[in-house]
């Protein structure tokens, strides 16, 4: 595998994990524009716990789970106040949370302040790929459970979901906290792969991109985040590649402009995201409908 392709796949893995972290709350109808904050927490926590020189010197086998638990705990705690807000307010509150985290980290000397922090243990690409696969499987499983069904029901109509017995508040808190934990995991893996963490890299643009992966991929099924991350990771690269091959430099320079415009156009043609329930049903429908009622071929 060429280095370039591997680099791209690393980004894809990280993006997919981040996207699942935003997807879980989004599937239950909450928009999280603070991904960067959770990623920062996970990255720095694992870096600090793992570091021989400045931190606790614990092995990466432990530091990554510790980072995940730490991010989960923080997300769980802030979920209660943040989930009192909704809609635009929640977008703003999560956004503000991420900015506060970034602002705090760059002032903590023991975390290297604005210079960032080296990370000792290295996580190779295959490790990253395995974890990504596990995260994807976990989210697919979660969405297939009754709990996942309740999340999707809450997304569509929370008062009716309540009337059928769903504990809306708890489900939302858990979705938010589990999502936070996944983003913490992503951040920790980022640090261990690149062996350096720097708060400036986890900025508002990252949060925006991740929210876009999820909303463009589609919040109705667990395929959405993968498709969104794939799309967002490869489309700019495709433009870059085309630009280089054809010698048309504007394709390479303008790839993000085109990309922004593609987002706008996507909202026109597929406002519910690329992957919707109806699409999946159309792909697998014939096979699935058969056993229920052969007469219903219509």
């Amino acid at each position, binding site marked *: 595998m060429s280095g370039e392709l591997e680099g791209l796949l690393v980004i894809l893995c990280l993006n997919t994990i981040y996207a699942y972290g935003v997807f879980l709350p989004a599937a239950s109808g909450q928009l999280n524009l603070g991904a960067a904050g959770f990623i920062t927490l996970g990255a720095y926590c694992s870096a600090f716990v793992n570091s021989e020189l400045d931190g606790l010197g614990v092995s990466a086998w432990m530091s990554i789970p510790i980072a995940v638990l730490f991010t989960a705990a923080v997300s769980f705690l802030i979920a209660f106040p943040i989930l009192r807000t909704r809609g*635009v307010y929640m977008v703003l509150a999560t956004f503000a949370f991420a900015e506060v985290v970034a602002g705090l980290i760059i002032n903590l000397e023991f975390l290297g302040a604005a210079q960032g922090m080296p990370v000792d243990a290295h996580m190779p690409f295959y490790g990253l790929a395995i974890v990504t696969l596990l995260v994807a499987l976990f989210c697919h499983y979660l969405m297939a459970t009754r709990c996942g069904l309740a999340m999707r029901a809450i997304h569509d109509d929370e008062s009716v979901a309540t009337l059928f017995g769903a504990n809306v508040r708890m489900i939302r808190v858990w979705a938010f906290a589990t999502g936070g934990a996944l983003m913490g995991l992503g951040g920790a893996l980022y640090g261990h792969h690149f062996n350096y963490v720097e708060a400036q890299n986890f900025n508002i643009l990252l949060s925006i991109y991740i929210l876009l992966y999820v909303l463009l991929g589609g919040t109705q099924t667990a395929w959405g985040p993968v498709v969104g991350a794939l799309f967002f990771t490869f489309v700019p690269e495709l433009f870059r590649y085309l630009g280089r091959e054809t010698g048309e430099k504007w394709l390479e320079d303008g790839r993000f402009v085109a990309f922004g415009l593609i987002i706008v156009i996507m909202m026109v043609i597929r406002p519910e995201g690329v992957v919707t329930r109806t699409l999946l049903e159309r792909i697998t429908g014939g096979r699935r409908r058969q056993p229920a009622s052969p007469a219903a071929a219509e």
Partner: protein
Amino acid sequence: MDVLLQQVVNGLMLGGVYVMVAVAFTLVIGMLNFLNFTIPALFMVAAVMMWAAMAGGFGADIDAVLDDVLGAPNKWIAGVIIALVVVSLASLVIERFTYRYMKAKYGDATEHALPLVSSLGFLIAFEHLVIGRWGSDPLTIDSPFGNASFHLGAVQFSIPQVISLALSLAIVFGLSLMLRKTRLGRAVRSIAERPDTATLMGVDVGRIVPVVYVIAGLLCAIAGILFTINYTTVDAYIGDKVATVAIAGMVLGGLGNVWGAIVGGLFVGLLEVLSIHFFGASIVKVPIWGMLLLILVMRPTGLFGHTAIGKGKF
């Protein structure tokens, strides 16, 4: 004491920029319940247009034309015109691709995010248009007005800044007056309160909404222009850095509340400058966004308790 007073003055001057952007945000959110993330982009575009006109960013040919027509010291006039025209046109395009998603089809939770997504798409596109043309490094100008200033006691007032603050407050007050007194203003408020009824009463929603977008865009554009003149350094991400702070000001004043946005904008300006003064530049995000977080959680209606999302108590 004098140093502190000077900081207060500087904070209010910076607040003047935030006020305009906060009012732009609040106008769109109050009317359409839409957090318009193209506002930072429009702010940035105007600021960069201003820079480009003054620093020859449009290329030698255009620069020569500007030199001939206006003369070197007056090129800022061209910047103002270009910025206003570009932003107005951009606002109209943006309106086409965001307003149409305001009508809920299923009423589910992520539906209202659709215009937000489109606006983020525009934000990315605009930022990279600028990066593609001028790169992502800081772009600086020499202030066309030099260091013109006067003193009141020990406090120094920069003349362009004082004019900017006065101008932005005048524009915002004028806007508020317009919303209250003119037919257009009444139409805007009626749409904000009851879009369906407004349509029945003969208000042409399809024509008023673009006007509101352009007004919001022009507010950001003027803010961007004044920012370039007063602070002389801009870059492609200036919208993310500066205009998002205005969001904090808007929330402080209560979403959809124009007067709240004025107070909130001035307050975040003060808060920013004073935090830098007392705690250093690196910490500045914490008080501003921490305050926003606290307000959202404790008192989401803002300080004045007039939330008016989609209800437009302008």
